[in-house]
């Protein structure tokens, strides 16, 4: 990673204003958003939006043409182009023809995308942003840091400073007063402008309408006062039917700012009269700039379902730490990474794609139903295809692809690591392993891996068999979790078999974009795990479970190894996470816990993959309570702990504050025990407490449950 990029991250992290404002905002956002969506079936709503928008994206060309015909029939002039350069030329031409000297703009990301302001200024045309946030950053000479709240990174002191310069008068930091200043300054600009430039939140093909959504009312003035109105619309804003406006208006304000509706919504269909009685000169530019290509790409087509609400930024643990500017100049956050890779170029996303920790928070709230982490993974894959894997990673993955060598080295590490071990942790591992296991303090490699312990466990030999997929961490660092799993299933009469040939689930390779390596891991594991005829394949690691249940098939398909697909699906069908299986067994009365003892307070940390990819969050909670614990929920229980595979090694400056926050939330519950269902989280959080020194025990749920089984 370039030094410059690291420096920008550190600058952002050290900016207390920025992290303070974003942290507070994202905490409040969560509560407010939930309230705004009360009584609404969010899944149904976003299903309708995703369907309508993906429908339009499927035949973008036709829909754009229908829009053009209908809008032109109403008297608008519609210009379609793929090329951002042509957009600028067109607007300059309209300006020239109308003798335009002053432009007022309502917020438009599309104009940011093509750097329109510079083009206008170069021609001697003055441009005023009129959205308050946009105006602030325009005066400050900055770029927006959030697509809905462009100036969220600035303090009132900074704004007062900037405004003071503008009005040549010492202003204090009274916010209502600052807003008044903006009103007074911008009012004459509205009245004097000869051209208004806006974006559009929706463009309806059926009726030739554009829909503008604002709170401040500036879009109403921009479209009313100047004689000429130019609307720059990215073609992804197109929908076919007028009725689709309803679900989008239902979701956009709720998701963006937790409002039921913004103060103003304007549906403009063709030119309206000016106040002098003449008819408005209305130009609508439908801009492509890679969007059609995106629509044709099966992996990225879904990006056109985005309604630009910004909620993915509001819930992103990375964005709330570093803010928008680290991501680049126009679009920010996870969705911004994707748009940058397309609208700018793939190479521009090389560094910022690494910021995503793949926690899935954004996916859960996105009203357009975008799978942002999945698309970012695909960007990683394409970058690797284009540029090849970095040498160090290549070396590691060549080891990972050779099970015998890999496991041999892990064993060796248990010996080699000894001099560096302090208690259960190693602080410096040989490089090739540190990339694999990583974390703040790393777990000591166990003296005896689970694969060596397993044959010595005496088990009931029944008809019912479960194949245990351990994953590297449980096998080599936390064999006790595996032992607990065997104990739990044995108790219900299930025999646990452990195929020796199983190897790394491929997640480290996959999340680094090394799909070939991941595919080989997938094939090896499928062969090993399906050899035994068992009812279930069970794992106590959510990342591994996701690999088995979701990623194997996708990865094999991506690299064209389709001969494995059928078997991958069979494996996926058998795969279950431990908490779900145990809950089922308890409900069936096949397992029960000791009664009558109060075990005291416990808190539970949701692991990203378990909660959001596998949708499991209630089962472990219920089990822990049934086992006798009193559950005390922590604040932001489902926020990522900062582990994220090799993330904590590559971006420790981001991972560390995320972990710190998690530790604080755990401590704040007053519980002396925290449970979780992912060995990766155990590694991260126990490593954190090891350094923090607080007396909180960190346990995998499996171990806590196994201790409480009825004899």
């Amino acid at each position, binding site marked *: 990673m370039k030094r410059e990029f690291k420096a920008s991250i550190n600058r952002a992290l050290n900016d207390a204003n920025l992290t303070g404002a974003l942290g507070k905002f994202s905490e409040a956002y969560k509560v407010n958003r939930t309230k705004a969506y009360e009584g609404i079936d969010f899944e149904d709503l976003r299903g309708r939006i995703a369907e309508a928008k993906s429908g339009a994206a499927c035949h973008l060309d036709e829909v754009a043409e229908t829009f053009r015909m209908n809008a032109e029939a109403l008297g608008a002039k519609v210009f379609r182009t793929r090329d951002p350069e042509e957009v600028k030329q067109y607007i300059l031409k309209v300006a020239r023809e109308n003798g335009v000297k002053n432009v007022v703009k309502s917020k438009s990301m599309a104009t940011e995308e093509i750097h329109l302001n510079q083009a206008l200024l170069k021609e001697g045309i003055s441009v005023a942003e009129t959205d308050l946030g946009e105006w602030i950053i325009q005066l400050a000479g900055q770029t927006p840091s959030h697509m809905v709240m462009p100036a969220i990174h600035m303090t009132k002191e900074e704004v007062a400073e900037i405004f003071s310069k503008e009005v040549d008068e010492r202003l204090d930091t009274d916010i209502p007063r600052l807003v008044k200043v903006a009103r007074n300054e911008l009012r004459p600009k509205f009245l004097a402008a000869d051209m208004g430039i806006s974006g559009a939140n929706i463009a309806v093909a059926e009726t030739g309408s554009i829909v503008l959504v604002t709170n401040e009312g500036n879009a109403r003035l921009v479209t009313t006062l100047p004689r000429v109105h130019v609307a720059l619309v990215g073609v992804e804003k197109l929908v076919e039917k007028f009725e689709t406006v309803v679900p989008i208006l239902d979701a956009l304000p709720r998701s963006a700012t937790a409002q*039921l509706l913004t103060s103003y919504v304007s549906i403009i269909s063709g030119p309206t009269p000016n106040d002098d009685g003449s008819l408005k000169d209305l130009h609508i530019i439908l801009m492509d700039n890679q969007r059609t290509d995106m629509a044709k790409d099966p992996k990225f087509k879904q990006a056109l379902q985005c309604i630009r609400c910004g909620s993915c930024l509001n819930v992103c643990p990375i964005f709330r730490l570093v803010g928008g500017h680290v991501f680049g100049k126009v679009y920010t956050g996870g969705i911004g990474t994707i748009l940058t890779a397309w609208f700018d170029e793939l190479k521009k996303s090389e560094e910022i794609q690494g910021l995503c920790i793949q926690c899935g928070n954004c996916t859960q709230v996105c009203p357009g139903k975008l799978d942002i982490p999945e698309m970012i993974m695909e960007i990683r894959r394409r970058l690797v295809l284009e540029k090849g894997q970095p040498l160090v990673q290549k070396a590691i993955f060549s080891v990972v692809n050779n099970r015998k060598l890999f496991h041999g080295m892990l064993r060796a590490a248990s010996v080699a690591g000894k001099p560096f071990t302090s208690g259960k942790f190693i602080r410096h591992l040989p490089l090739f392993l540190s990339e694999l296991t990583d974390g703040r303090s790393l777990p000591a490699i166990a003296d005896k891996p689970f694969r060596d312990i397993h044959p010595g466990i005496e088990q009931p030999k029944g008809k019912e068999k479960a194949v245990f997929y351990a994953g590297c961490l449980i096998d080599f660092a936390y064999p006790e979790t595996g032992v607990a799993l065997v104990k739990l299933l044995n108790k219900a009469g299930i025999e646990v078999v452990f195929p020796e040939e199983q190897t790394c689930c491929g997640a480290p390779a996959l999340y680094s974009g090394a799909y070939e390596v991941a595919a080989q891991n997938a094939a090896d594991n499928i062969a090993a795990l399906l050899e035994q005829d068992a009812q279930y394949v069970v794992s106590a690691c959510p990342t591994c479970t996701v690999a088995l249940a979701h990623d194997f098939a996708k990865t094999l398909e991506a690299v064209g190894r389709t001969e494995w697909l059928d078997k991958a699906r069979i494996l996926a069908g058998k795969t279950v996470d431990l908490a779900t299986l145990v809950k089922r067994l308890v409900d069936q009365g096949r397992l029960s816990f000791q009664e009558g003892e109060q075990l005291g307070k416990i808190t539970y940390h949701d692991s990203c993959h378990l909660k959001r990819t596998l949708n499991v969050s209630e089962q472990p909670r219920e089990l822990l309570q049934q086992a006798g614990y009193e559950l005390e929920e922590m604040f932001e229980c489902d926020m990522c702990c900062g582990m994220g595979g090799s993330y904590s090694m590559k971006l420790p400056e981001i991972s560390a504050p995320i972990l710190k926050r998690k530790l604080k939330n755990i401590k704040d519950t007053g519980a002396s025990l925290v449970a979780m269902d992912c060995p990766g989280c155990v590694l991260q959080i126990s490593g954190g407490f090891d350094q923090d020194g607080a007396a909180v025990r960190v346990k995998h749920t499996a171990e806590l449950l196994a201790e409480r089984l009825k004899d």
Partner: protein
Amino acid sequence: MYEQFKARAVGVGAEVHRVTTCSDAVEFVLSFLKQEGIADHPGIYAVWAQGPFLDAVGREVLRGVPGLSFEVTRERAAQAKVGISDMSFAVADTGSLVQDQAAADQRLASALTGIHIALVPTSNILADKTSLFSRINPANSRFIAFITGPSRTADIERVLTIGVHGPERLIILFVDELGGEKR
């Protein structure tokens, strides 16, 4: 539905009132203008946009009210303290008002002034956007405007502040007698 509308609209900072007859409405407006000290001077006069309410009551009854004018130009609207206009529909679940504002004076009176008084037929309160969308049609309304509460921003430190470009007060007056479905 009136109660639901009222709760939602008040929730976003609007002031909601209701009268029975058109002459009650006139009286409400006049006493409001008086209370605000409306007179024939820049910054403290009022503009009233063309619309069904004025057609219904007739302009004569309002002629000669000091500081009130029916001429809504951009300059006059920009300096007016109060703007008065009608809205066609009220949407209960979001507390929104909706109107075909293709006529520029409608928009000027409701967008540039400091206080916006909106007159709405009580019988035109609709439950939600879905029922609204069956009544509006872009084919015959070129500028459909939704107004939900006064103009607002939270762009400085996320602090909610009212009245950045548009009105800082939105006063909604339901008139029972006005009848429904008129534009």
